C-alpha cells in the first residue's frame, strides 16, 4: 500500500461562531496530484493554509508522513507553498527569491546557487535569473513562484489557485507542465482550485469541498460519472436533475417513477433512500428520439450553438427543463423549435443522488 503523505484527521476550524471546516478527514497519498475543488468560500483554501501552518486548527490533527505537525509553525514544516498572487519578494531578483528558502535551511551560497540554477532550468527561466519580479510577465512570475517552492525539495507542495491569474491559453499550457513536473519530481502536490476543468484534467484524485465539508473524494472519472450527491453532480460539469419518486433501493440499484409515469431502474449513490429523489443525467448522455419511444416527453424551447456542440433545452410537461447536448456533426438531426420530442437515456447514464 502506498504511504500516506498528508493525513487530515477529524479536523475542524472555527472563526468565532463560523465553522470554516467541519470534521474534515482526508488521506493524501505519497506522490499524488491531489486537488481540493470547491466554490469560493467553501473552505478549501483554509484547509491548504492549515496544512501550510498559517491557520491554527480548532480540533483534530494534521499528520505529515505519520508525524503530527498541527502545532508546528510554518517555518518548521517541510512543505512549501505556491501562493495565489505568488508573493515574490519584490526587492530580490529571481535567483535570490529561489535561493531564499535554501539559505534559510542553512545551505551555503554555492550549493544554494547551484540548486537555484537547476530549478530555474526546470521551469525554463534561466535567462531571467537576474531580473526583478516586477520585470517579469504574470506567467514568468508564476514559474518563479513554482521554482522557489520546489527548490528546497519539500515533501509536499501546496498550490493555492496558482493558475487563476493567468489567461486561458497560458493556463492550459501550464497545466500540462505542472503535471509533468509533479511526475518528474515525485513530490506530492496538493492543488486548490475552483475550476473543475483544471481539477478534472490534472488530478490523480479530487476532493470536492462545499460548506466546509468534504463531499466526495475520488479520481476525476468517478467524481464526474458517479457523483454521490446533488451538489457534486451540479458543481462538476453540467447535469440534468430529474425529480423522481423512488419506490425501492436494493443492492445499489433504485427503482423509480419518472415524471411521465415511466418506470426506471438505475444505480443509486450510497446513502440514497426511497421517497422523493433526484436523478442526475449528463446532457451528453441524453438522446432525442420520437415522442413515443422516449422515457420522457417534452417540447424543445431553445437551441444554443456552442461550436463543437449544440444544446437543446426541452421543457417537460411539469415545466422542468432538461438539456440535451448534441454533437455538431453531419447528419445530426436538430429538431425545430417547439417540436414534440422524446428523451431517452440508458440505465447506466442516470444515477439516483443523495439530496
Amino acid at each position, binding site marked *: 500500500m502506498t504511504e500516506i503523505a498528508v493525513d487530515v484527521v477529524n479536523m475542524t476550524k472555527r472563526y468565532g461562531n463560523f465553522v470554516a471546516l467541519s470534521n474534515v478527514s482526508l488521506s493524501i497519498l505519497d506522490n499524488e496530484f491531489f486537488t481540493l475543488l470547491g466554490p469560493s468560500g467553501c473552505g478549501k483554501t483554509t484547509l491548504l493554509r492549515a496544512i*501550510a*501552518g*498559517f491557520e491554527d486548527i480548532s480540533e483534530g490533527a494534521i499528520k505529515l508522513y505519520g508525524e503530527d505537525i498541527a502545532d508546528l*509553525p*510554518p*517555518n*518548521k514544516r517541510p*512543505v*512549501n*507553498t505556491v*501562493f495565489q*498572487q505568488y*508573493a*515574490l*519578494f*519584490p*526587492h530580490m531578483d529571481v535567483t535570490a527569491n529561489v535561493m*531564499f*528558502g535554501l539559505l*534559510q*535551511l542553512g545551505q551555503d551560497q554555492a550549493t544554494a546557487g547551484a540548486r537555484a540554477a537547476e530549478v530555474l532550468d526546470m521551469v525554463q527561466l534561466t535567462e531571467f535569473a537576474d531580473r526583478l519580479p*516586477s520585470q517579469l510577465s504574470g506567467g514568468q512570475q508564476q514559474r518563479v513562484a513554482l521554482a*522557489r*517552492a520546489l527548490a*528546497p525539495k519539500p515533501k509536499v507542495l501546496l498550490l493555492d489557485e496558482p493558475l487563476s491569474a493567468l489567461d486561458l491559453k497560458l493556463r492550459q499550457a501550464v497545466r500540462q507542465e505542472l503535471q509533468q513536473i509533479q511526475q518528474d519530481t515525485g513530490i506530492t502536490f496538493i492543488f486548490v482550485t475552483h475550476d473543475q476543468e483544471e481539477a478534472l484534467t490534472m488530478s490523480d484524485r479530487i476532493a470536492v469541498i462545499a460548506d466546509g465539508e468534504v463531499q466526495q473524494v475520488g479520481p476525476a472519472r468517478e467524481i464526474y460519472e458517479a457523483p454521490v450527491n446533488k451538489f457534486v453532480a451540479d458543481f462538476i460539469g453540467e447535469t440534468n436533475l430529474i425529480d423522481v419518486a423512488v419506490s425501492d433501493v436494493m443492492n445499489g440499484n433504485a427503482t423509480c417513477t419518472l415524471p411521465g409515469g415511466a418506470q426506471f431502474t438505475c444505480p443509486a449513490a450510497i446513502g440514497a433512500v426511497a421517497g422523493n429523489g433526484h436523478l442526475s443525467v449528463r446532457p451528453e448522455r441524453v438522446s432525442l428520439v420520437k415522442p413515443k419511444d422516449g422515457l420522457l416527453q417534452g417540447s424543445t424551447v431553445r437551441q444554443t450553438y456552442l461550436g463543437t456542440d449544440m444544446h437543446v433545452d426541452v421543457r417537460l410537461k411539469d415545466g422542468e427543463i432538461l438539456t440535451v447536448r448534441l454533437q455538431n456533426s453531419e447528419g445530426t438531426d436538430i429538431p425545430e423549435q417547439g417540436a414534440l420530442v422524446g428523451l431517452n437515456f440508458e440505465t447506466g447514464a442516470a444515477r439516483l443522488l443523495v439530496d
Partner: protein
Amino acid sequence: MAGGLPKSSESNTSTYAGLGALLMLPSWVMIGFFLVLPVGLMLVYSFLTKEFRGGVIWEFSLAAYDQFFFDRGLFGDDPPVIEWTYIKIFWRSIWQAGLATFFCLIIGFPTAWFIATRTGANKSIWLFLITIPYWVNLLIRTISMKFLIRDNGPLNEWLLSLGIISDPIHMINTNFAVQLGLFYSYLPFMVLPIYASVERYNFAFSEAAADLYASRLTTLRHIILPFVKPGIIAGCILVFVPSLGAFLAPDLLGGAKNFMIGSLIEEQFKGNAGNWPFGAAVSMILLSMVLVVLTFYARQQSKGGVR
C-alpha cells in the same frame, strides 16, 4: 471640413504651449517668493558687516564665518585658533537630533506597525489620536511638558506618592528634558511615513518567508525592513532635520546650559544684542549640513528600493 481638422489641432497645440508657461507661473512665484528670495537674502546677509543695534551695513565681510570657526582674541588681532564654542553647539545639536531620531524610530516603528495592521475604521481612529495633540500650538505643548516634569510637577508628585522615589528627580534644564521635548514634538513625523509604507506591505510576503523556513527575525530583517525602508528614511529625515534646528524645546526645557543651533540663531536676531550676519552665517552652515543629509537620502532613493 476635411482640411479643417489638422489645422484646429495645430492651433490647439500652440494654445496649450502658451498656457503651459502661464500654468507654471504659480509654481515659479511660490518657489521664488518662499524659497529663493528668503534663502538668497540670508546668504547675502551672511557676507555683510554687522550693525550694532541689529541690522546690517552693506559692506562685504567674511567676519561672520570667521567668528564661527576662529578665535582671534578679545581685540581680534591675536593669531587665529579654532573656535570650539559654536562647533560644540553644532555637535550637541547633531547628537540631540540623532538621539531624538533614534528614539522616534524605536517607538514610532512599532506604533506605525500597530496602526497599519488594525482593521478598517480602527485604523482611522488610531491615526486621528496620533494627530490630535498637533492641533495645539507647539509652544503651548512644550510649556505644558515643562510643567509636567518640573521638580514639584505632577510626574514627580505621582512617583513620590507611589513611593517609587524618595526625592523629586531633577529633570528640567537637562539634556533629558530637551530630548523628551524633541521626541514628543516630532514623533508623528516618524509614525506617518512609516505607517504609509507598512500599509502598502503585502503580508503574503511574510507568509512566503515563513513558508520558506525563515524565522520571524529573519523575515523582519530581510523582507519587511527592505520593503518599508523608504518610509523609515523619510521619517528619519523628517525628525532629524527639524530637531537639528529646533529652538523651542532646547530653550524652554534645556535652559542656557543645553543650547542648540536653533537657539543660537534665534538669539542673533533678537533685540539689540543680535548679530544678523552671524545668525545668517550659522543658518547657512546649518542649511548646508541639511543639504548633505538630503543628498544622501536622494542617493539612497535613486539606488532603488522597493517601489
